[in-house]
């Protein structure tokens, strides 16, 4: 509460009120950042899961996931090459 002297607030009181307000705002922000689990439990678990993924043999598991796709893509490329060899020549006219 800002005290008034002759109907006007004193400078020191105004400054203190502003300071208190800024401090309260900073505290609120700091608490939100420091306690994300309470602020958004689901986001927090998701963030932890992603951190876990990147810290848990990430490249090894990524390679394991990519490899089957890569091998089939190589088979597809091979099929395209073989087709080119056995197909007709000289009539590859663009539409």
């Amino acid at each position: 509460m800002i005290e008034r002297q002759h109907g006007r607030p004193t400078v020191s009181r105004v400054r203190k009120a502003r300071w208190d307000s800024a401090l309260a705002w900073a505290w609120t922000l700091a608490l939100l950042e420091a306690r994300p689990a309470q602020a958004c439990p689901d986001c927090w678990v998701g963030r932890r899961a992603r951190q876990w993924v990147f810290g848990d043999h990430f490249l090894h598991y990524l390679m394991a996931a990519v490899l089957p796709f890569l091998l089939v893509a190589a088979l597809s490329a091979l099929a395209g090459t073989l087709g080119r060899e056995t197909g007709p020549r000289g009539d590859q006219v663009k539409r």
Partner: protein
Amino acid sequence: MKLANRGPVISAGILLGCGLGAFVDGILLHQLLQWHNMLSSVHAPVDLLSMKYNMVWDGAFHALAWFVTVLGVWRLWRAGKRSDVSWSTPTLVGAALLGWGAFNFVEGLIDHQLLGLHHVHPGAHELTWDLAFLGLGVLQTALGGVIMGLGSGDYRAPHSS
């Protein structure tokens, strides 16, 4: 009329079959039936954190499936612009089935048998399920090859315009 070039359509079909087959795996076995997740034999999804961990890896799997599907569509689009390429339904369908089967077989061999990242249906008879999945892959590949053979005599006249 000349014997058409089937290579580009086969190549596109294999990619499409692989991508769409991976989507069937992810949607049916990971999400709807919830038999397994990408790393469910490494970290079983028994609480929210491990469930979300597996969810991230399932997302990576679906992202790869999406990428391969887009690549297949692109290949097919390019094939459609060529005059010498056979626009044959048995060739495309057979190649797609072959791609799906090849993916199931390779994925089953690497992720289920060699690395043990997950199993088709974990539990008492997981090996039986895994072997059946491999067998399904071989069957799809063979059937795809047979269907592709039906389109081997396709002809296509070069475009006049």
